[in-house]
């Protein structure tokens, strides 16, 4: 097999555009899944037993089915009643998927903050809510950083699955280019490289963040 990276260069701007779309989705999803996961976790640990059951069901549902299927479901399945644009479906699907995973982590780290912390805060006169907000959540968050980082790294790779519902991220962009140029391997190699570089930066970022917070644990 001979390689010819000429077509890759021709279509590189398209790939970059795809990368931009993918990054946008990833950033929104990261924000949504971390904040959402935290909210879900706090609710299910602290606030309301009744409310926590549907939330647990939600986590369970998103954790037990493949992302691809969830995306199809939101896009085509729900499409019979309500039309959600592909990119929004992608954000919601990925967002909920990782929200479930993150919630799971936060539940564990919230529980790992010792009762002593709760009591110390209460004995200063902080209320239940204030204790959760000022004492428990920040500590749970710091403890969750390593695992959250891993999840976000996985999530970035999963943005490639969005090509299945037509979100114009980088894999999607390459699919078009491949179907025109018939140069699949060249594009796959370049895409793998792009992901790898992004991944390295994310890992560096994660390590930095862990170092920055290590002394606060």
């Amino acid at each position, binding site marked *: *097999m001979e390689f010819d990276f000429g077509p890759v260069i021709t279509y590189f701007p398209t790939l970059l555009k795809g990368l931009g779309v993918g990054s946008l989705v990833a950033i929104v999803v990261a924000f949504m899944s971390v904040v959402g996961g935290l909210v879900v976790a706090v609710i299910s640990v602290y606030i309301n037993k009744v409310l926590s059951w549907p939330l647990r069901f939600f986590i369970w549902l998103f954790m037990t089915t493949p992302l691809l299927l969830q995306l199809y479901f939101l896009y085509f399945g729900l499409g*019979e009643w309500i039309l959600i*644009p592909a990119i929004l479906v992608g954000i919601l699907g990925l967002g909920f998927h990782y929200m479930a995973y993150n919630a799971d982590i936060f539940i564990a780290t919230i529980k790992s903050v010792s009762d002593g912390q709760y009591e110390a805060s209460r004995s200063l006169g902080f209320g239940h809510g204030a204790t959760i907000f000022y004492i428990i959540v920040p500590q749970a968050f710091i403890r969750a950083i390593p695992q959250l980082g891993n999840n976000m790294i996985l999530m970035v790779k999963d943005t490639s699955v969005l090509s299945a519902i*037509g979100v114009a991220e980088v894999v*999607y962009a390459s*699919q078009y280019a491949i*179907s*025109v140029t*018939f140069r*699949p391997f060249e594009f796959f190699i370049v895409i793998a490289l792009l992901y790898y570089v992004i991944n390295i930066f994310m890992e560096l970022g994660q390590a930095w963040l862990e170092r920055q917070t290590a002394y606060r644990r």
Partner: protein
Amino acid sequence: RELDEIRGDVFQVVNSGAYPPFSFVDTQGNLVGFDVDIAEALAEKMGVEVNVQSSPWNGIIAAMVGGRFDACICSMSDTEERRQAVDFSDPYYSAGLSVWVQGSTDDINSIDDFAGKTVGSTLGETGNQWAVENGEGKWRNQTFQGLPSMMNGLTTGRIDLMIADDVPVLVAMQENAPDIKMVDVGELPRWPAAISIQKNKPELLKALNTALAEIKADGTYQAIVDKWIGEGANIE
């Protein structure tokens, strides 16, 4: 692989499996369709054992270039760019692009009317390439993975119109009767559909072309057309 290698083994043929009536899975789980029957007929003429499989579009191209399968009999259009990477047999049918809209739409009568609309096409089809190359700055393109999702997109209003090979849509309409109609927007390009194989396999290419000519000559071809496309249809 070359022909002599295939003779000692099995002729591996691939299609997308999601492109009725050319290749699809019936509710019994069998891979059937026009392309499948053609593959079997050709194999019989060539005197080789055949195994027809399906693979998503991405895989098909990679398979052809990398030599994973021996031939793609999958309604693939024969274009100049693709010839850089694979070899094509003589055409085995000719597909025509057609434009489809919802039953109630009446403002699309020419390509100029596409302006500002969302145009759907399916990944890997030449219609997709045409739409992307010509649509720059005029209309929005949306690519689907397969006709079913595109038709779903059209009926639910995700797209305003779709460009697709006509036969599959016509067949799908017989099955499902969705509220869509074909509109005439003037001349659209036509590409012949051909069998693609790896480059530089002259023996295999020759055998395929010979077999193709034979099934056309002895009526096998027309029987397959009658079975899948419609009685007496002419798609050459």
